[in-house]
């Protein structure tokens, strides 16, 4: 295992080392210590490596991730895993706003709670939150799955497209054009697999599915108030 003391090595050199790892690197396990809430740690990775950040991180940790697994052994700041393409980000603590914003693929797991705008504009990413999520989550969500084992805040899935939301607890309110949906076998299957991948023990049968009512897909003046 390679260990980097972030305070000593600095952000630029740390990310440079991680970016230098090729697909066939032998140095597949990395640990970053002394994170101290720094921004942009381990962003833009593109190799099958596993990076564990000890402590809490600032903005955009694991941003635009490809292939890599990033573990945050603490809480994560705003925009963690933004635009993730593939790979996995696991947050042991809580996640701040905009978790996984615009993510195109991959998996993000939060062991604690996630704040507002979780999964905003998601484009294929899967997000599994063990606790609760804040308001305006999955705003304009296009595709992918957002799984919430606790409760969801106000305006879940506002103006969403084809993203799916599975919530075990309560939803404070649904956003414009978001509605409760039937749980069909294929949804149970998706959820089962996601919970398994996230290593979270929960019964898929306890969840409710939400998604787009598709009433805002083409402009209609009678819906003007909802835009």
């Amino acid at each position, binding site marked *: 295992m390679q260990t980097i003391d972030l305070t000593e090595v600095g*952000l*630029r050199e740390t*990310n*440079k080392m991680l*970016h230098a790892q090729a697909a066939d690197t032998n140095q597949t396990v990395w640990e970053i210590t002394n994170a101290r809430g720094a*921004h*942009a740690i381990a*962003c*833009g990775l*593109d190799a099958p490596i596993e990076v564990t950040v000890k402590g809490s991180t*600032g*903005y*955009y940790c694991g*941003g*635009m991730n*490809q292939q890599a697994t990033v573990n945050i052994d603490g809480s994560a700041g*705003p*925009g963690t895993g*933004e*635009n993730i*393409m593939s790979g996995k980000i696991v947050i042991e603590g809580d996640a701040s*706003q*905009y978790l996984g*914003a*615009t993510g*195109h693929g991959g998996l993000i797991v939060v062991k604690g709670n996630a704040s507002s*705008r979780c999964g*905003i*504009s998601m*484009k*294929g990413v899967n997000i599994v939150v063990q606790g609760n999520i804040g308001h305006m989550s999955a*705003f*304009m969500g*296009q*595709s992918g799955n957002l799984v919430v084992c606790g409760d969801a805040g106000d305006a879940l899935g506002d*103006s969403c*497209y*084809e993203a799916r939301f599975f919530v075990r607890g309560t939803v404070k309110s649904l956003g414009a054009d978001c509605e409760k949906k039937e749980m069909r076998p294929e949804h149970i299957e998706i959820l089962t697999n996601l919970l398994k991948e996230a290593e979270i023990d929960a019964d898929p049968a306890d969840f409710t599915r939400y998604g787009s009512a598709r009433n805002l*897909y*083409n*402009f209609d*003046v009678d819906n*003007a108030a909802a835009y």
Partner: protein
Amino acid sequence: MTDAKIPTTTPRQSATFTADVNSDIRRAAATGIYDIRGGGAKRKVPSFDDLLFMGASISRYPLEGYREKCETNVTIGGLHAENPIELDIPITIAGMSFGALSGPAKEALGRGASAAGTSTTTGDGGMTPEERGHSNKLVYQYLPSRYGMNPDDLRKADAIEIVVGQGAKPGGGGMLLGQKISDRVAHMRNLPKGIDQRSACRHPDWTGPDDLEIKILELREITGWKVPIYVKVAGARPYFDTTLAIKAGADAVVLDGMQGGTAATQDVFIEHVGQPTLAIVRPAVQALQDLGMHRKVQLILSGGIRSGADVAKAMALGADAVAIGTAALIALGDNDPKYEAEYNELGTTAGAYDDWHEGRDPAGITTQDPELMKRFDPIEGGRRLKNYLKVMTLEAQTIARACGKNHLHNLEPEDLVALTMEAAAMARVPLAGTDWYPGKPGTGF
């Protein structure tokens, strides 16, 4: 007696309820939807046309055309980036979305810009292989929608432009109507075909100048501090926006006035929000100067730039370069009178056609219809754009030489006078025939 006619008044049209206004009211009453269109503000606003160069005189001697050099090159992004952008001419191609424009139109922009030694820019919807392949220097737009955004394309870019706003719609998002969503556009944007695609007006993962600084840090880390990062803002509050962009760490500021084109937005937005291009240059330059960053952080001005005279005026007021959108489309063949009959069928006329969002462009440029697209030849289009860029450059050089300047960057406000009080106030150059402009320090006005 009785046949004496009573004089009647001639029918008088209202200056308030003009034919245009009345047609807007009838359209709104019939449809219940605001008017969406492409292009920029059509109303007359104070512009570069209200400025004149004085040329040489006894106190200033001119340079000999074709003999004495007048350089035109510009370097953008040398402040923080390892690989700044080197351009032969200070006229760049503005970001225009794939989706709004066809693939061949994007290719033509790349061909023309590259042949003329300048850069082109992606737009909403992501990077296409056509434009990457045909553009020597390609600026990658990082937009609120993040449609098609991915780190592989990001790393292929020669510069990154974080789009905060557009002059045509400061504070507005975008809407690509369902009829223009082909399979390819839908796939790139990860959305179902045929539905309206709304582009958000705010970035999903940052708000405000402090966040912007961190966002710039992240983009630099991901691209290894190699490429310049521009910040594009609408001409709303140019002094503050330029100041905040510089403080956040931008290498260049792209400033877009209200005449600037858009692919599609509400007409009311285009005509009533934002400031004219003429009015935004000096406050932005002032911000650069106040921070000691003029010529270190580059200012790229856009919004209604049409000719070498506009280029020269923008540069004289302190811009480092300009960007063109609408003019480039016209050079490619948009709104050409040769399609007049077809424009008439669409209920419009050449020059006025602005329903680019409907995808029925007779010139085959702002469309995704395969049949219409075939009408447009990207090689010929590229050649036309190159010619046009060369002419603009020659025109700007002609003016600069007449003012005795051996580089376009040496043009200065002192070379200009204004034809109107408004233009004098906005450009902070004297009203023609006077040594005064409204707001001139020490004049008590």
